[in-house]
C-alpha cells in the first residue's frame, strides 16, 4: 500500500504540473470533488455497522457529509467550467 501511496503522489504532481493559472480555481474545485471519495469509506462504515447504533449513526452522518462534498464539488466545478465552454471558437487560440 505504501508503493501505491508514493506512486499516487508522483502521479498527482505530474498530472497537474503544467496547469495554466486560469484553471487553478476549477482544478482546486475538481480536486475537492475527488477527495469526496471519503464517501466510500462512509458507505462501508455504515454498511458494515451491524447492530451497533453508534457506528450506524457515525456512518450515516459520514455518508451525508461525503455526499455533500461529492455532489457539491462536481456541480460547482462543472458550473465554473461551463463558462469556459461557452466560446469554443475563441478558445482554441488561447490554449497554450
Amino acid at each position, binding site marked *: 500500500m505504501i508503493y501505491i501511496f508514493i506512486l499516487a503522489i508522483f502521479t498527482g504532481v505530474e498530472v497537474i504540473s503544467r496547469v495554466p493559472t486560469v484553471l487553478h480555481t476549477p482544478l482546486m474545485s475538481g480536486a475537492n470533488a475527488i477527495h469526496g*471519495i471519503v464517501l*466510500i469509506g462512509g458507505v462501508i462504515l455504515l454498511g458494515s455497522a451491524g447492530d451497533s447504533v453508534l457506528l450506524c449513526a457515525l456512518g450515516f452522518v459520514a455518508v451525508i457529509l461525503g455526499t455533500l462534498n461529492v455532489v457539491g464539488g*462536481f456541480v460547482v466545478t462543472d458550473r465554473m467550467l461551463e463558462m469556459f465552454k461557452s466560446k469554443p471558437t475563441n478558445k482554441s487560440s488561447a490554449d497554450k
Partner: protein
Amino acid sequence: MSRTSVPEAAYLAASLLFIFGLKRLSSPRSARSGNILAAIGMALALAGTFVLPGMGHFGLIILAIAIGTAPGWLLARRVKMTAMPQMVSLFNGMGGACALFISMGEWLRETAPAGDFGQALPMLLGIVFGSVSFTGSLVAFGKLQGLITEKSVRWPLQKSLNALLLLAIVATAAEAVPHHDNAWWAVALAGAALLLGVLQVLPIGGADMPVVISVLNSCTGLAAALTGFAMHNMSMIIAGTLVGAAGSFLTVLMCKAMNRSLAKVVFGSFGLSPVAAAGAAAVKSDQVMREITASECAIMMGYARKVIIVPGYGLAVAQGQHLVHDLDEALEKRGVEVKYAIHPVAGRMPGHMNVLLAEANVPYPKLLDMDEINPEFEQADVALIIGANDVVNPAARTEAGSPIYGMPILNADKAKNVIVIKRGRGAGFAGIENALFFNPKTRMLFGDAKKALQELVTEVKAL
C-alpha cells in the same frame, strides 16, 4: 475471491478515471470532460462498494445519500459565481468532517489489540487531519462569506498556544494507542484538532484565503487517503493521495504567483509592519487623489488607441462583469483596442477573475496573463483599474518595508493615463495604502463599480 473482484475492478477503473480526469482538468479545452470523467469514476467506485461482501443497511445508505445530494446540488447550482471560493471551502469542510466521522467509527470498531501502532496511526491521523480541515474550512468559509472578520485576528502568545496545542495532539494520540478501549482519548484528540483548525485559520487575513483553501483541500485529500489506509480501501488511498499531492503542488504554484512563502501564510499573517504604516502616513499627508467625472473618463478612453482594463475583486462584488463587456464593445466600436490584464490572484482565487469574465462573455483571447500584458502597458493610453488595488500597488516593487514587497504586480503605472474606479478612499484588502492612487497621472472615479461602469457605457456611446 470472486466476490471482491467486482469492487476491485470498479476501484481500479475509478482510480484511472480520477487520474485522467485530473489530467484533463489542467487544460482549458478538456477541463469540463475531465470533471465529468472524475464524476463517473466516483459513481463507479460507489457502485462497486455496494457489492462488497458483508454489506448491509442499504436503505439507510441510500437515504443518507439522498439527504446529502439535495442540499449539495441546490447550493452548488444556486451559488453566485463570486461566492465560488467559499462554496469550495464549505464542501471541502464537509469532506474533512466525513473523514473525521469515519476514522472515529473505525477506531471504535477496531478490535485489534491495544498498542498496535501501525494499525492505529492511520485512524488517529485521519481524525486529526479530518478535524483540522473541517473547522479550518468552516472558518475560511465564514471569513469569505463575511460572517467572520476578514482581517487577521491576533491574540497574545498565538504561536506558542498553537505549538502547545500541537504538542497536546501528539501526546493525546500517543496515549490513545495503548488505551484503545477507552474511546475518550480519541474524542479528546478530535476536540484538540478541531480547536487547532479554528486557531490556525482565524489569524490569516482574507488576502491569503486562496492559499489556505488550497492547503485545506490537500489536507482533506490526505485525510481521505489515511482513512483508506485504515479501511484497506485502494480507491480511497489513490484518490486521496492524488488530491493531497496535486493540492500541495497547486498551493506552491499559488504562493509563487503571490510571492509569499507558505510558511509566512500559515504562521505569520499580513500585519502592518511599523515601516509600512509610517510609509502610508507619509503618502496620506502630502499628496491628494485627483477625482474625475464619468464623462471626462469616457472622453479619455473613447479617443484612446489602446485601453487596458485591470479588473479586481471589487468588480466582481459589484457584479459589474457584464457592464465591463458592454464598455469593451462600445470602445471597440470606436476603434479602440481593449485588452484585459489578469493578475494571477485577481479575485479571491487564482483564475477566479477569468471565470467571472468568461461568464460575462468576454472573449477568452482578450484576457492576458500578467507576464504577457505587462510589456504592453507602456503603449497603453489608458489603464482602467476597476476594484483592484494591491495587484497594482507599486509599493510591491519599491518599498522594501511593505508587506506586499516583492509580489509581482501589473505595471498599470506605466500606462500614459490611469483611471481608477473605486468605492471609497480606504486602503485595499491587505490594508496597505497605494501610492498609484496619488500619482499625478492617475484620476479617481469614486463610486460603486457597477454604477460607474453604467455611466461610462452611456457616455462612451454618446460620444
